């Protein structure tokens, strides 16, 4: 019976520790996703400022060049805009963002910032696009900076909390 208890305690501690590690990994994945998004926005800026490509073309090219959920989101938008079904750009942007937000691991604040970015994209001239993109990149840099700054402590905290939580549960269950 004691062996059963010991096995149970080990399993509970291990699974809680794994949950903690998973949570820490999520933080890293989130940071990596934001970095990918930043790279894609840089590419988008190049397409708009240098090649003067219309948005659906620019989104398609950038989406094809990249990987991950953000790339899927770009491709979906490009496809929908290409169909020209009489939808505004901001609507397509927002609806597709809502659809992909979970996969992109966006926080509520990042989601709002990204939605606002889409509302202003395509408005007026190239100079306006440049400023809109620059503003969003600034916001993105802040988010990435915050994620990087707190990554180590967050990773440690999640891992420790997981293991400690597991031990605590094991003690209570025993």
């Amino acid at each position, binding site marked *: 019976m004691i062996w059963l208890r010991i096995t149970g305690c080990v399993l509970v501690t291990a699974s809680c520790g794994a949950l903690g590690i998973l949570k820490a990994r999520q933080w890293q994945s989130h940071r990596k996703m934001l970095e990918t998004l930043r790279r894609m926005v840089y590419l988008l800026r190049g397409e*708009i400022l240098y090649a*003067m490509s*219309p*948005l659906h073309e620019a989104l398609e090219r950038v989406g094809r060049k990249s990987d991950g959920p953000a790339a899927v989101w770009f491709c979906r938008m490009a496809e929908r805009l290409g169909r*020209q079904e*009489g939808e*505004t750009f901001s609507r397509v942007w927002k609806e597709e963002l809502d659809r992909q937000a979970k996969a992109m691991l966006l926080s509520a604040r990042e989601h709002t910032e990204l939605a606002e970015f889409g509302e202003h994209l*395509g*408005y007026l*001239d190239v100079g306006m696009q440049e400023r809109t993109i620059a503003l969003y990149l600034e916001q993105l840099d802040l988010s990435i900076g915050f994620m990087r700054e707190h990554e180590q402590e967050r990773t440690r905290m999640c891992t420790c909390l997981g293991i400690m939580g597991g031990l605590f549960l094991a003690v209570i269950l025993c």
Partner: protein
Amino acid sequence: MEKKDELLRIFAGPIREMLGRAALNWDNVQEIRLRVGRPVFVVCGGEEYVLTEEGARRGNAGAAGQIAMSVGMANQITGNVRAAGRIAKRAGEAGRTPGQVETSDRAGAYQATPQDLRETLEYVSSHSLYAFEEEIRQGFITIQGGHRIGLAGKTVMDGRGVRTIKYISFLNVRLAHQVRGCADRIMPYLLENGQALHALFISPPRCGKTTLLRDVIRQMSDGRGFTVGVVDERSELAACWQGIPQNDLGARTDVLDCCPKAIGMMMLVRAMSPEVIAVDEIGGREDIDAMRYAMNCGCRVLATVHGDSLEDVARKPVLGEMVSEGMFDRYIVLSSREGVGTVEEIKDGDGKCLHSENRAKSANRKEGEEGGRL
């Protein structure tokens, strides 16, 4: 059907729906004009139609689209007119000249709203007006299919000229069309011993010189096997969309789109080694210099210019120089006297008449009279 679908996509919701339901022969549609607060006009087969809205009156699904049309156009309608759609021969009923729409017709006509134009512009530019800054400056946007959207509104000026157009309240959707074979009659005059000749097409606006030049380019490229370079400053000849010509200019034709003529001719000579260079609507000193450069490099030049006759062009300050220098081997003068694209006369470099429409007619008449006498 494909052309219709392709076109309808660029219009704002209400106009898109009405046009979609209207029983029009889309192969004959030439222009669709949108003006804020004014009826939407459709020019089809040379006649003018006004788009009307009857949805509320009928109250059944799919009943809103209808076209008020002038007499003589009913035979151009294809397919069955839907039970919902109605064709009103308004001009005939009102005892007016066919093709004219009276102000009273506005009563039942759909009036385009500022929102309609804004939305249409958004779709025309693929939600990216910034990508068409240069085109807007020039007053038109070319879309897929080679159709051109003419824009008018309030211009914003800067030191360089027109910076942009704001409050765009007038749109003219001009459908691309090409008349294959329209240059058949003049092609023998443009060649000598298998070599292309320098040719200048002279005509007043809307007399078909661009359409004729387009077919000449195609025939030079496909039929005669010349490598042709086209400098298409206003995207009229090739109507490029995303760099791909939407009009058929032949298999051996390279197009430099939206490029100033003078620079473009130099670029083509250096980069693409064309045997024939074609440009539309020359006028400035730099155009003449670039043509001279291309001719000196051994290229044959095909160009168009606005004018009534060779004498008219010869009187113009800059263009007169090229006539007096004998830069061109052929001058083709067009008019719309007997329909768009009437070839009035063809002259050689010395101004000697090689073909004259009047002379040909009087010769035909004479032959007929002699035949009658015999």
